[in-house]
């Protein structure tokens, strides 16, 4: 099999402080991977920092939010013909050493998407109990709606095969992309698998979801997931030259 071209996508909003250690580690561990920083309308020098580290940068004219930013990354991956796209948070919560595990899990299986889950094994994540309950609820809802085993649907630490990121380049959900895209992908016949990983604490800055707002957030996301599940599956899946044909000749 020819060398797989892999792109690491880092959607970033004001992460000038968190990027340098992350980019450093990515460069040291995976010199063969290309890295793209999608600057989501940052007001700090996120863009200059990324350029100083020699990675590709795409500047969004204004803030689109995580859904739009990662979608831009998928569009980039599609345009430049990558085989695999890995998506990481730019704040350092997703440990670079686990990227390899995700990519291997993807290439060694028939999965279209690998999600790095904090809950497949115990103690993958430390946070408030309320957040953990919320995440477990969303995972349960995801499992029910997709009929695949999901334990962490809000994790943004993912690896995608070409067919999957090409689909998301067109249809990435904008409101709550992490849990919604799991449901959307599964309902459009993409095979979603999980791999256990440990996440780190956020280095600098505040997470955009805090405290009591978690409960309100959960209600909104639940509603969004239910609606996402109702969406009409896209009739023709985008062509995937790299996918082996099934023996039975179905689909």
């Amino acid at each position, binding site marked *: 099999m020819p060398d797989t071209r892999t792109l690491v996508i880092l959607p970033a909003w004001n992460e000038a402080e968190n990027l340098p250690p992350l980019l450093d580690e990515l460069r040291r561990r995976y010199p063969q991977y290309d890295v793209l920083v999608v600057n989501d309308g940052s007001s700090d020098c996120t863009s200059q920092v990324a350029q100083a580290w020699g990675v590709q940068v795409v500047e969004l*004219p*204004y803030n689109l939010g995580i859904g739009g930013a990662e979608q831009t990354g998928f569009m980039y991956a599609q345009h430049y013909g990558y085989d695999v796209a890995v998506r990481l948070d730019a704040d350092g919560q997703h440990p670079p050493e686990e990227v390899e595990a995700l990519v291997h899990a993807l290439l060694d299986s028939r999965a279209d998407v690998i999600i790095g889950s904090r809950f497949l094994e115990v103690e993958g994540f430390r946070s408030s109990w309320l957040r953990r309950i919320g995440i477990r609820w969303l995972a349960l809802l995801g499992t029910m709606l997709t009929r695949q085993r999901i334990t962490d649907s809000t994790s943004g630490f993912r690896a995608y095969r070409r067919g999957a990121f090409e689909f998301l380049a067109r249809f990435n959900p904008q*409101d709550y992309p992490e849990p919604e895209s799991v449901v959307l992908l599964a309902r459009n016949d993409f095979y979603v698998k999980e791999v256990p990983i440990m996440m780190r604490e956020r280095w600098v800055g505040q997470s955009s979801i805090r405290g009591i707002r978690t409960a309100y957030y959960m209600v909104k996301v639940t*509603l*969004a997931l239910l*609606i*996402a599940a*109702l*969406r*009409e599956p896209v009739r023709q899946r985008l062509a995937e030259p790299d996918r082996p044909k099934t023996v039975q000749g179905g689909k």
Partner: protein
Amino acid sequence: MLDPQQFDVRIQIVAIAGAVALMVIAVELVRRRRLGEVYSIIWLILGSVVTILALFRNVQEIVAKWVGVYYPPSLIFGTLIFLQLGVTLYLSVALTRLETRNQILTQRLALLEHHVFRLHKCENGQDNS
């Protein structure tokens, strides 16, 4: 002779049927990607409120008394109008945001075309500045 009771029941049915139809249409539009999810929530809330008010006569009367409306069923219309104003206001906000973003895109596009034009002229050996 006209029977007031009959009218009350009928308007209830009409109101509920209308609200339910609206909600079903809204959900279907979201399903077909014609309507963003955010907007569906607005219509679902609107439809639910109207349905609840129309369905439970006693709720109507309690709220009507509380708000100061003499004829309870007109609470439904009042609510509808009020919620509509809310929707209109929200649309104005969304429109403003779109206009702002549109302007940014317009300006950057113009600048981009300018850069490309200059680059093109440079390549063709017509150096300037």
